[in-house]
């Protein structure tokens, strides 16, 4: 009966033979051969006699998978109204089979959760969305109150955290913002050059690049870059801290998480985003200028001369003025989503995605609202 220990691993090959009312099981009933055994058992036709004998003395190896298959087979025969006598089972295998039998009874109690119906699904989703909006609103309120406290008592401001965030979200974003704004300037000039040349209005390239960059493209481009760079980082950082209970630790030490984690980020981004936008304005126009001289032969002198006439302070202010609003949106959404993380690494990933998507979405929506408002006001 006892098997050489070394040959145990990887053994497979269970056999079943039927002789009249006697079923002979032998070989290795293990996980390795369970797939073949399962197929064999499904096809096997059992004798129709009301009383069966199952000779298991030939089974020399058995693990839980094998024991489960044996148990399942015997159970299905018994359910068919037949009596099954199991003989010759090795005592250890008997113990295993009994354990499996006991567990199988507990297995009956496992209830698979039913997926929601369509109507329930819609209802639950609606409630979730409404709750989200409400909680986000209260988060904005809390942040605003905390911010007000900071303004009243500037001593409470965490300048170190603020400067650190300013470096991460502002200074470190300069290269990528510059590069993309420069390329954007080139693209606009390139696309516009062709049309303008047709009307002989080459010099208006300065108007085109200057106005579109300053009023729309630079602020939106910068906000989107920052939402992708910093908004996602805020969610991931706060979310991971939540998973590792660091947020709770902060609370117990008596440091409001809002004070340490949200406000410095919000403040830093509100300062950094307008500055980044100005930087993008300059580099973007520069890109357009380079393209104008290459494509249309408009010299930089002429370009700058024209630019001075084309844009006024209000165009510049319209663009830069939107930046702090975008900054507030991106930082609030990023931080809020971070606090919504529950439990697992998976949740951090999901929340980070939501944070970036919502951030960019809201930035564009608000930008559209700004456009409507400005046109009403005639700016």
């Amino acid at each position, binding site marked *: *009966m*006892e*098997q*050489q*220990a*070394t040959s*145990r*691993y990887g053994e497979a090959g269970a056999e079943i033979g039927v002789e009249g009312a006697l079923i002979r099981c032998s070989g290795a009933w*293990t*996980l390795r051969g*369970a*797939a073949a055994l*399962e197929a064999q058992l499904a096809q096997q036709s059992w004798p129709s006699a009301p009383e069966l004998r199952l000779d298991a003395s030939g089974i*020399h*190896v*058995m*693990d*839980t*998978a094998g*024991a*489960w*298959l044996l148990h*399942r087979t015997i159970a299905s025969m018994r359910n068919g109204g037949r009596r099954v006598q199991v003989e010759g089972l*090795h005592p*250890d*295998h008997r*113990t*295993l089979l009994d*354990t*499996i039998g006991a*567990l*199988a009874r*507990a*297995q009956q*109690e*496992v*209830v*698979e*959760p039913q997926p929601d119906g369509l109507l329930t699904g819609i209802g639950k989703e609606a409630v979730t969305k409404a709750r989200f909006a409400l909680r986000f609103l209260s988060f904005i309120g809390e942040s605003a109150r905390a911010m007000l406290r900071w303004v009243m008592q500037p001593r409470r401001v965490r300048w170190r955290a603020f400067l650190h965030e300013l470096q991460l979200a502002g200074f470190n974003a300069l290269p990528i913002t510059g590069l993309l704004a420069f390329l954007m300037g080139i693209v606009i000039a390139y696309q516009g050059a062709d049309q303008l040349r047709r009307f002989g209005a080459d010099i208006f390239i300065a108007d085109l690049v200057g106005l579109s960059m300053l009023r729309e493209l630079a602020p939106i481009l910068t906000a989107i870059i920052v939402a992708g760079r910093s908004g996602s980082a805020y969610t991931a950082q706060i979310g991971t801290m939540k998973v590792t209970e660091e947020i709770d630790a902060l609370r117990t030490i008596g440091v409001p998480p809002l004070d340490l984690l949200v406000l410095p980020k919000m403040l830093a981004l509100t300062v950094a985003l307008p500055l980044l936008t100005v930087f993008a304005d300059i580099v973007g126009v520069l890109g357009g200028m380079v393209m104008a001289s290459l494509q249309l032969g408009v010299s930089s002198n002429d370009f700058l001369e024209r630019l001075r006439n084309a844009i006024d302070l209000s165009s510049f202010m319209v663009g830069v003025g939107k930046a702090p609003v975008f900054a507030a949106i991106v930082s609030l959404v990023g931080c809020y989503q971070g606090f919504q993380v*529950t*439990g*697992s*690494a*998976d*949740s951090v990933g999901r929340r980070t995605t939501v944070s970036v998507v919502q951030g960019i979405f809201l930035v564009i929506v608000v930008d559209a609202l700004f456009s409507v408002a400005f046109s009403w006001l005639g700016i």
Partner: protein
Amino acid sequence: MVAGMRQAPQAETVIEVSGVCTRFGSAVVHDHVSLSVRRGEIFALVGGSGSGKSTLLREIIMLQRPQAGSIRVFGREVLDLDEDGALELRRRWGVLFERGALFGALTVLQNVALVLREHTDLSAELIEEIATLKILRTGLPASAVHKYPSELSGGMRKRAGLARAIALDPELLFLDEPTAGLDPTSASGIDELVLQLKELFGLTIMVVTHDLDSLWRVADRVAVLGEGRVVGIGTMEELAQADHPVIREYFYGPRGRAAREQAWKKR
């Protein structure tokens, strides 16, 4: 994990660690560590914090490489295995991590079924049945089967981790701090489960633990790591007689004394 083969002909060596040296920068963690684990025994690795127990465990299960030495598992040198060989070995052992390391995106059932699906060609139905059995086997209630790890308590998560570790009916089980952070009832529940697995299947189990009660209860042999080496190896009774300062400190501290008296009382 095969029942009925308890009395192997002679104690065969399953894990053989010899001359392992590990350094992190200038810090020497292991200075020629050697030990061997025999088939069918519960072998415990103990030592103070930072004595390199978990590092040694990670080296044996191929998550980390030592700078020098040799580690043989089932007679195969793990330090120069190719990918196929490594996979073959990994299929033969199960690992329970200290914090369970369950996949958060999956339910407990899916966590266990994942292992079966990766390594066998069983039908989805059979995989689910076997996975459910394993989960119930570790003493988790039926209501926990479809829950996510984040909905479980620490002790339940550890049981679920154990269910995943034994999913493939492994011959060798590695347990990293299986009872750490558990209440006494859950901890002794895990102890009993480990003993049962060994009794029923002749499993070889290597356990890293700080839990002195658990050591007296389950460990057949214990190796004490200290000063970068194995300072003592043997049964708990033998170690209790040893006079190496590290061992004495470990077993004759107030907690060690209490656990020992408790263990003697039970005999």
